[in-house]
């Protein structure tokens, strides 16, 4: 009986809330995407709240990765490069109405330092508040500090956000939007925060719904239920494009689909074996058929939009299966009875691990499997959880791992590259491979070189990665979103830091 009573109550509630929604001036802007709201902690899923422009950090970045003031209106480094002073905005308020103070910033950053996150990369000695400014002292010079302080894990939250143990119990931040309803892990509603320091945005309220199935998302875009839809598979993009009321907006991300090699594996430790695998892969065909976007075939690790890191003067990665076969033969591999190459009585067999979070990865993995089979390499594709790649890196069992590496975790790709290609390699970068040239160049880049020096160091890194192939670039990445024509001013952020809601407007009828 009580069930029926409950459902009547629920129905009544639903009716009331629908009426209440109708009474509001405008419905919220509806965003649909695959990402779930897993954690509200900046160290966990913080980027979610940066994207919705709920939370801000000291430093911000524009769509060209150029740093710009966030909650700090300016910053400068001392002559010995060991002390950074961040001057805070005077007119910044938290969503509970309290003003932002230097102490709040110090608290948030100190808590961030105790959790896993990029801030640990910085050689920080001490963070303190001084006359309303924030002072960060370092043990050695580190030019990347402002870029690190743009990362979502360094969001500044109000004191009331934290529980006694430093865990985040509520997101009370400073952005142009504040949370009005949060139903983890599926949905969130944010509304305009009138005391934000910047120009008041045009869009009053924004809802986000996490929808795990790509086909459901595409149908929501087509039916007009969603105003902006992320995470569409290439086939759906084509279909949605035909719908007159929806447009497709795209941007090339600083993200590359790559295969990580275990360079200590008997069959992979020779650079010629890695080159042969690279030559066996038809990237143009693969991107055309699976991504419907042949321009995204990677000819080197970094896409052309990463202007500092892309080099048009190095020989591109090619498709040449004949040369691949010759290289493998020179390494002593001979075709066995079933076509699989054999050496010392062992077949050339590898396991490629990947994951389905990005829907194009599993089909690309099977295409690679097929292309390598043609030169005599047997690949077993294992589709599991993204964590199996770092776990396999750590316990040494990984042979090949494919993911879509994001080089813009912080606005400067250098932070990610130091992690991935430093002397110890990285969970998502090199495995059992290091190059003194690359290590030194990366270290020097982190210590504020002149422009010319920086250019030379970057050239060394790129050239070395291209010739040694510790990872195999497969495809660059274009992010597309379906956007209703009712909206204007929609721009996708290549850094995936922000939905840039403050730039959007409803089109006047």
């Amino acid at each position, binding site marked *: 009986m009580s069930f*029926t009573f409950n459902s009547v109550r629920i129905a009544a509630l639903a009716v009331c809330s629908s009426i209440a929604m109708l009474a509001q001036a405008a419905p919220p802007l509806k965003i649909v995407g695959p990402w779930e*709201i*897993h954690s509200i902690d900046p160290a966990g899923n913080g980027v979610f709240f940066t994207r919705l422009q709920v939370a801000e950090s000291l430093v911000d970045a524009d769509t060209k990765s150029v740093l710009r003031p966030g909650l700090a209106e300016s910053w400068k480094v001392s002559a010995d490069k060991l002390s950074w002073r961040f001057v805070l905005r005077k007119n910044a308020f938290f969503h509970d109405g309290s003003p932002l103070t230097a102490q709040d910033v110090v608290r948030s950053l100190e808590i961030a330092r105790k959790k896993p996150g990029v801030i640990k990369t910085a050689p920080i000695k001490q963070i303190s508040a001084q006359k309303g400014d924030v002072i960060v002292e370092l043990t050695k010079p580190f030019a990347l500090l402002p870029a690190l302080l743009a990362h979502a894990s360094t969001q500044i939250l109000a004191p009331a956000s934290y529980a006694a143990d430093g865990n985040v119990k509520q997101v009370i931040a400073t952005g142009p939007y504040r949370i009005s309803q949060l139903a983890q892990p599926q*949905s969130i509603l944010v509304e305009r925060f009138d005391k934000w320091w910047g120009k008041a945005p045009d869009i009053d309220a924004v809802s986000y719904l996490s929808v795990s199935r790509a*086909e459901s998302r595409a149908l929501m875009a087509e039916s007009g239920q969603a105003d902006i839809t992320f995470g569409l598979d290439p086939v759906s993009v084509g279909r949605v494009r035909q719908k007159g009321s929806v447009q497709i907006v795209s941007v090339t991300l600083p993200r590359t689909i790559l295969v990580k090699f275990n360079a200590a594996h008997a069959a992979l430790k020779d650079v010629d074996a890695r080159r042969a695998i690279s030559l066996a892969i038809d990237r143009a065909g693969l991107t055309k058929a699976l991504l419907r976007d042949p321009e995204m075939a990677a000819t080197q690790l970094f896409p052309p939009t990463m202007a500092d890191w892309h080099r048009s003067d190095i020989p591109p990665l090619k498709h040449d299966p004949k040369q691949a076969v010759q290289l493998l033969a020179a390494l002593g591999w001979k075709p066995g009875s079933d076509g699989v190459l054999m050496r010392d009585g062992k077949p050339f067999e590898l396991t490629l691990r990947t994951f389905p979070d990005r829907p194009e990865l599993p089909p690309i993995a099977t295409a690679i499997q097929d292309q390598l089979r043609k030169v005599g390499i047997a690949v077993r594709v294992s589709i599991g959880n993204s964590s199996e790649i770092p776990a396999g890196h750590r316990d040494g069992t990984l042979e090949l791992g494919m993911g879509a590496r994001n080089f813009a975790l912080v606005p400067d790709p250098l932070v990610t590259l130091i992690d991935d290609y430093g002397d110890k390699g990285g969970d998502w970068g090199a495995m059992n491979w290091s190059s003194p040239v690359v290590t030194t160049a990366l270290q020097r880049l982190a210590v504020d070189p002149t422009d010319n020096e920086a250019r030379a160091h970057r050239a060394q890194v790129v050239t070395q990665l291209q010739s040694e192939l510790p990872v195999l670039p497969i495809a660059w990445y274009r992010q597309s979103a379906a956007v209703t024509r009712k909206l204007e001013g929609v721009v996708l952020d290549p850094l995936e830091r922000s939905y840039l809601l403050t730039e959007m407007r409803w089109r006047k009828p």
Partner: protein
Amino acid sequence: MIASSVITMGALSRRIAGQRLVQFVLVTLVVCSLCFLIVQQLPGDVAFRIAAGRYGYDYVTADAAEAVRRELGLDLPAWQQFVRWVGRTLSGDFGVSLVTGVGVATELGEHLRNTFELALSSLFLAMLVGLPVGVLSGLRPGGGLDRLTLAWTVAARALPAFMFGLLLILVFSVHLEWFPVAGNEEGGTLLLPTITLAAGLAGLMARIVRDNVIQVTASEYYRFALYKGLSPASVFFRHGLRNIGVTSITYAGMQLILLLEGVVVVESLFAWPGLGHALVHSVFWRDVPMIQGCALMMAWLFVGMNTVTDLACLAIDPRGRRE
């Protein structure tokens, strides 16, 4: 009539409730232990899995996994983790979701409400359609309506809920633009998942009712009542309906498990934030307290539904007051 053979309704209900209570305790223990064992056996390192859930694939690294392992005591031996968890569950503490950091009880409450909303509306719709159709086709076996329900039942069972749901979305949301596709935020979102679930259930219910109607109308007591000169309508309402009801309810109660099975798929397709959706996701992210909470909740629902079915049968069974 011997007094001692008469068992009152109250005593019988109490006996049923007692049996179900024992079942409830046993099911709880079995589900808890099985869940724990299965999660332990799943491939992959739990700490890495949870880190992937918390930090996302861009940030899942060995450091993040180590932090998770330390924080959650995953380096303890399995049996100690189990004892810790059972102890907490018995004291009413379901723990905290490893991924979202929200209390499992809070999250389950929300999911349970959504699942109830979906399950009850589907059940209601299935009964609204299935019962009258079943009775009418049972009264005229082999007639047009009877053959139609047979075709419908076969089709609804053969077509997976996932397919049927997609078809509904294509027709009603994309082409006609009448209802939203997914989510539970706006009005009208309940309709399509309800129809998807109810379609299969209604067909099945109609078939069960039809078979019972045929059986009861062919019985001696039913024909005797007709010979006695009562009108067909009064025979049906006085001697038919309750007898048909008992078997139909028992059978339909058993079919309710289809609902629980259906919500897992349907909730996922329609992004309906219920128990099924939560279970799938918590398994994927190895969110152990959530997996255990969801599985327990589903087991309890099953026991609960069986109890309600038993009591409902008891209430309408004409023989109910005597042994």
